[in-house]
């Protein structure tokens, strides 16, 4: 069955998470993605996690996850010959996906204004912490800096008086990557409508500051000049809405509507205190949460998280267990949906990986092949550009590939 994006040719000049993850979405759904790596490889190859913590550029877990279904070529952009070879690659590509700081792309002579000259139909998708324009566009930055520039952490995560928090993953990079994927694919699909190729400029910080933080807060602040900050609890207006410890971990206790509260009471064996007037709506429960939370916690501490989730869900209460990553992966639900896939990697051996993020029955996606070895497709890709075996040998000895 053909992939949804069969026939789309993409060059990736990306490292770490944002551009590689964006390009993975295209590759896993059938696009032909050539990942261009520096001679020493994408830095993700050094980040791990590694099996048994033994570093090996072919066994980095991040690389194995984020670079599935791609081809890898090496190319030294610091050499003149490297740049011209890159231009040959991009000349007939539908899209370039990259996450280098703007000044770096300019330094290589690879700004959009240069690339559109050789390929006017090119959709250049740039994913950076701050974007291509604006005063911070010349700044150095990573996922962490982008995320904390959005208001998301100050507003929504951490205890008052303590530092604002990001999720323990590359949240900013991921958000930028998915915005880039949707807007980038639209620019490719609708190229005729748009009248040609274009530069799609994604700032990870801006995407979050707009759609996540801005969506819920900016109208209020602009009109009334007031804003809120993190509480460390979960939700301050309604309760219960918090993460609570239980016998073997943690549970998300969410119970806002009356029917849900009654369902929770039933699950907990109808304790008398839950009938008190001050606990009959989510607002007054929130005002009295200091009294309420310890009472609920007494109960959660006597039960396991899976049991709590199962019994609450059966009574219509939207309580969920805080799964560890392993618990999520091994859960019968994801197993029955075939979400966890197995791959055979020439160096790392049999590895488990995450499957497609969404199912398209008419043109299924998901990892098509394991992450490529460094430069695995040099001969094939450069051969298709018309380079002879001798040319390629020459490029190798010149240190270009």
């Amino acid at each position: 069955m053909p992939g949804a994006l069969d026939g789309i040719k993409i060059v990736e000049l990306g490292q770490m998470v944002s551009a590689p993850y964006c390009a993975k979405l295209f590759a896993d759904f059938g696009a032909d993605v050539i990942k261009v790596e520096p001679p020493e490889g994408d830095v993700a190859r050094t980040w791990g996690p590694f099996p048994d913590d033994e570093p090996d550029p072919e066994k980095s877990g991040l690389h194995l996850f984020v670079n599935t279904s791609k081809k890898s070529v090496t190319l030294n952009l610091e050499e003149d010959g490297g740049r011209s070879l890159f231009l040959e690659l991009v000349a007939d590509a539908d899209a370039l996906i990259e996450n280098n700081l703007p000044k770096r792309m300019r330094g290589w002579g690879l700004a959009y204004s240069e690339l559109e000259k050789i390929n006017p139909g090119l959709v250049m998708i740039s994913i950076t912490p701050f974007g291509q324009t604006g005063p911070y566009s010349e700044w150095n930055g990573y996922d962490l800096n982008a995320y904390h520039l959005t208001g998301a952490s100050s507003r929504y995560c951490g205890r008052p008086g303590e530092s604002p928090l990001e999720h323990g993953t590359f949240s900013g990079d991921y958000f930028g990557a998915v915005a880039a994927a949707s807007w980038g694919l639209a620019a490719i699909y609708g190229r005729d409508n748009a009248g040609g190729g274009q530069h799609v400029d994604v700032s990870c910080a801006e995407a979050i500051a707009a759609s996540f933080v801005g969506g819920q807060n900016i109208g209020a602040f602009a009109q009334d000049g007031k804003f809120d900050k993190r509480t460390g609890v979960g939700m301050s207006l309604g309760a219960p809405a918090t993460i609570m410890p239980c016998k073997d971990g943690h549970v998300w206790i969410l119970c806002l509507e009356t029917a849900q509260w009654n369902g929770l009471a039933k699950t907990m064996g109808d304790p008398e205190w839950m009938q008190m007037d001050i606990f009959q709506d989510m607002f007054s429960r929130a005002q009295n949460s200091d009294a309420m939370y310890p009472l609920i916690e007494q109960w959660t501490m006597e039960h396991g998280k899976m049991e709590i989730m199962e019994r609450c869900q059966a009574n219509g209460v939207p309580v969920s267990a805080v799964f560890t990553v392993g618990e999520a992966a091994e859960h019968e639900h994801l197993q029955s949906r075939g979400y966890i896939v197995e791959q055979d990697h020439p160096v790392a051996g049999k590895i488990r990986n995450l499957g497609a993020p969404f199912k398209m029955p008419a043109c299924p996606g998901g990892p098509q092949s394991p992450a490529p070895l460094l430069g695995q497709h040099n001969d094939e890709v450069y051969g298709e550009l018309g380079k002879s075996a001798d040319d390629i040998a020459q490029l190798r000895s010149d240190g270009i590939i």
Partner: protein
Amino acid sequence: MPKNLPLKGIRVANFGWVWAGPVTGQTLAFLGAEVYKIESKARIDLTRKLPPFGGGEPGPDRSLSNHACWAGNGSVTLNLKKPEAQAIARNLAAKCDVVIENFGPGAMDRIGCGYETLRAERPDTIMFSMPAAGLDGPMKSVRTYGLSLTSLTGLDSLTGYTGGPPIPVENAYSDPYNGILGAFPVIAALRHRDRTGEGQHIDYSQQEAVMHMVGPAFMDYALNGRNAGPIGNRHPLAAAAPHGVFPCSGDDRWISIAVLTDDEWNGLRSVMGDPAWTSQPDFESLQARVTNIEALHSQLAEWTRHHDDRDLAEKLQGAGVAAAPVLNVGDLLDDPHYKARGTYIEVTHPLGFKETIYGAYVKTSRTEAAVEPGPVMGRDNDHVFKEILEIAPDRYDKLIADEIIF
């Protein structure tokens, strides 16, 4: 003025509600699709009731957060509890390229608009369903809110102070995330339809899409059987140090600093004035800094706390160090970067008040996105029912009187 819109000519019926589904509609609309949200006064979406309201006056067409999150979607009102309204919704779906919904599995069947029914009327229908945990499987009917959905992916287990309990993210990051990413399979399915004539029913499990965010931690589990816990603001793969948020002068002011390379470390040292502690062997190499990250972070915090966040960020950037102020909501509107990029825009709502929403959160050099104020309920009723569906004026009036169009 919007121009060169890539999705011009694509029509979408959006049954999505609350946040994620409307954002998928918004994303497609910004890019040129004609999107009609189907809603009803018989069951007003709860986000239309969220304060504050435009001009301080309560009303379902005045919620400022609703407008920002839904802007771009049009609106038609149909009371889907009534069979006649369901039939009209089916007719509308048949005139659309794409149907979006984010109810639980089976809900669309119950309102007579399930995929098989719609497909019978239009074989190349693309239906995009985005339930919490997918359309099938033992947990398909799980009840969650957007802010707790992430607990089913492992993401919440990684969020919190190092070594401490999980700390909740107090709003649904996954809603706009899934809303925006949702446009990707929709466009991919449009492409597939154009090439093959085939429609399909996309099963977008929000759990599975968000779980990609824990991909790196999943690999540690898959390769080593390890389950990570909360790591504060440290680098998720321990490949950088310092890597965190540090206090600055003033109330609740902070700076983020991430040091991955030796050049960046040397830049940081020079801005600090090369204090003696930085030359200790404990901090000499990246590996040593990662090992001794706790001591490193406390030393650094002692220094940052005497500085203004923005001044310090500028100074560090001058030395090539990745540093930025940690902004709060009150900083966003006046931040020079967001101002320069036009991240937030003020528009005049048709009801007369001004509202600040976000505009195109991605900048496109040829396309100028189509951004409009949040939709008034039923804004597009006349156009959709009379022109697209060609309902005769008499019948249209009767449908309104009978609260079918409602």
